[in-house]
């Protein structure tokens, strides 16, 4: 501990350099936090996906007869089936996209982990035009319980040909992690009874819950083959696969994120290694003095490592801090409907950042340390 002032003095010898290095390291770690934090979000979503649930929907697009719900429910191994459809619309201007998911009464039972109380679900049963709005969406459209919202949905017309759908905001509810833009939930019956005859008794997708999680994939395949020759063939995807971002987009996003973080680290490594080498070169004679007054090789080397570690670790801490601030304010600036994931600063992000910072510091200090170990005290003292 008593050497802290010594290390500090060494760093602050060139304050401009110290501050610039720190800022550079900080930004590289901000990027690190954002990218690795995004991977943490993907991992969290994937982890929260339940292994006993399946999505089933029309194989060739469009709506599915609701009657299939009972048929799937009758299959061995299936515990329960819920269905949901959606009203894809907009508010005032097509740019203000609004997507209301219309839930049937089984949804709360098949998705019990959602942060919505039975009382809240009951609200949209009691009032068919009721709607549950997540906090994020409520903030976005400035909605509160009791408001009325009319959206235009040209792709889901009503019986009279009108595209406008009116909803009553019944309650503002907590957000659901994997719906990074928030959600709006309405009552499926409202939609079903109001829409054009050809679309009535049809829904968008089923959420199938199986009784034995080890049979999920098997049952998913059985559902496909059961309806393969029906007028509405189905396609299924297990929740685990559906919530896997690289399976969804077809691009290995997690490794892209890692590469970006790595590029930042590489840049910083170059910077700190150079700065340190230069600092040690400038103070070569001083290190010789330290050795002369009795500092051991390892003592001097420890000083160099400390000199490297302080800006790296401080920069990492500040960078991750900045990244978490950015992720907190990010949702406010993102355009809606892009579905960009918001990074999460989990413990693992901190741990990885710490490890990377330590590694960068270690590599930066390695060469200068080696030079100090091999230094010839007499030559160094003479300043040549």
């Amino acid at each position, binding site marked *: 501990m008593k050497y802290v002032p010594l290390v500090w003095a060494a760093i602050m010898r060139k304050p401009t350099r110290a501050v610039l290095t720190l800022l550079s390291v900080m930004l590289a770690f901000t*990027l690190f936090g954002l990218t690795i934090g995004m991977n943490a979000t993907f991992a969290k979503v994937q982890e929260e996906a339940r292994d006993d649930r399946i999505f089933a929907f029309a194989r060739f697009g469009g709506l599915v007869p609701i009657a299939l719900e009972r048929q799937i429910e009758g299959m061995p191994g299936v515990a329960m089936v819920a269905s949901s459809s959606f009203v894809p619309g907009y508010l005032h201007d097509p740019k203000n996209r609004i997507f209301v998911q219309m839930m049937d009464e089984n949804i709360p039972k098949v998705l019990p982990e959602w942060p919505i109380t039975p009382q809240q679900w009951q609200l949209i049963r009691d009032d068919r035009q009721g709607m549950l709005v997540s906090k994020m969406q409520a903030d976005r459209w400035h909605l509160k319980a009791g408001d009325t919202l009319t959206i235009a949905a040209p792709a889901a017309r009503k019986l009279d040909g009108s595209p406008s759908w009116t909803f009553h905001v019944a309650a503002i509810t907590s957000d659901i992690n994997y719906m990074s833009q928030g959600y709006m939930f309405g009552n499926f019956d409202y939609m079903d009874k109001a829409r054009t005859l050809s679309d009535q008794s049809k829904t968008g997708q089923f959420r199938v819950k199986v009784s034995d999680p080890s049979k999920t994939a098997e049952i998913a395949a059985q559902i496909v083959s059961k309806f393969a020759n029906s007028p509405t063939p189905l396609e299924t995807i297990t929740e685990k696969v559906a919530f896997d971002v690289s399976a969804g987009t077809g691009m290995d996003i997690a490794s892209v994120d890692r590469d970006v973080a790595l590029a930042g680290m590489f840049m910083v490594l170059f910077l700190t290694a*150079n700065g340190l080498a230069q600092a040690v070169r400038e103070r070569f004679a001083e290190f010789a003095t330290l050795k002369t007054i009795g500092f051991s090789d390892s003592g001097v080397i420890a000083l160099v490592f400390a000199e490297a570690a302080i800006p790296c670790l401080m920069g990492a801490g500040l960078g991750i801090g900045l990244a978490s601030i950015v992720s907190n304010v990010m949702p406010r600036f993102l355009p809606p409907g892009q579905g960009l994931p918001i990074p999460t600063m989990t413990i693992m992000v901190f741990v990885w950042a710490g490890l990377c910072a330590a590694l960068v510091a270690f590599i930066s200090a390695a060469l200068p340390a080696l030079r100090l170990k091999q230094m010839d005290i007499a030559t160094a003292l003479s300043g040549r």
Partner: protein
Amino acid sequence: MLRQIWIVSALNFKSLKSRFWQSMVIVVGLAATVGVMLSMLSVSAGMRTAYQNSGSPDRAIVVSKGVEQEASSAITRAMAPLIAVAPGIAKDKDGKPLADRTLQLGVPVVRANGSKGFTTMRGMAEKGPGVRPELKIVAGRMFQSGKRELIAGVGAQVMFQHMQIGDKVILPDGEWPIIGIYKTGDQLEGQLIGDSETLLTATHKTNYNTMLVRLASPDSLDAFKKAMTTNPALSVDVIRHSDWYNRVASQSTFGLALLGYVVGAVMAIGALFGCLNTMYAAVSTRGREIATLRALGYDALPVAVSVILEAMLLSVTGALIGAGIAWALYDGKLDLFNNVIFYLSVSRAQIALGVIWAAAVALLGGLFPSIRAARLPVVDALRAT
């Protein structure tokens, strides 16, 4: 003055060798920044090009009023002939209007890596090839109307399994063989095409999705649009095909492009601090040399300019290296994102953007050190060891 700038800068660049590793901080910083940014932008730029190539200013698309996606539009059998006889549509050599009844639906596919995905299957009627003259069969033959057969795009062939001639695609009424491979130079290359009428029957649909017409000339859009919007039997929107795809392109690539720029900006600021650091160090190592020049009668300005030029040279070199790596790794590579197949693109315009980005960093990163260099007290600097 220019001569002085030239002499001082030349001297400066000659001494770069002795500051090699220090200077590499700027080169590596900008190489990483521009390399990462252009690699990320290659996705959004490639996707944008694929979409934009799909539209054409001499085509118009007719969709149900207010919809934003082809799949959610519905054109009934009764509406189709009304649209086809409207003025402003180009005619083929038999005098028939070049208006195509189209379908669009998603079909599940297996990606080359074995994971499940979707692609778009399009229905095209008899006038389809006339409306889309860019469609060329490169292997096998065109599908025949009334037959249950499909053609696949060259991109789909690479990115999905089971897309060769002779392979079968499962549709609701059985298996349809792929009998030809086509090229279009746009996002259709990642898709499948079959006969609209036959597909309609096979998928138990009653309506087409859109009407795609070839305009008599790009200027005849207004006449066509007027005929559509004044006909009370139709409730449709008419949009120039290129405008339609420009909107689709912005909507689907905005987020990705934004991400690329944000990452690029964060890295650029990091590189900027590195650049400042290096240039301050360079000025202090060159203190003696600068003071000598000043003592010999050189102005402060050439000295300051030489510092900025050095920063420029280093960062633009870095940017070109980064851009070169991004280009070599990704440009022209076939890729897939959100079920759209496209060629990744690191274009000249983007490389230029990377260079501008680097020049901006160098300007800012060289400015303050150059001021310090210009203000260096000559006597003190000469005395310094």
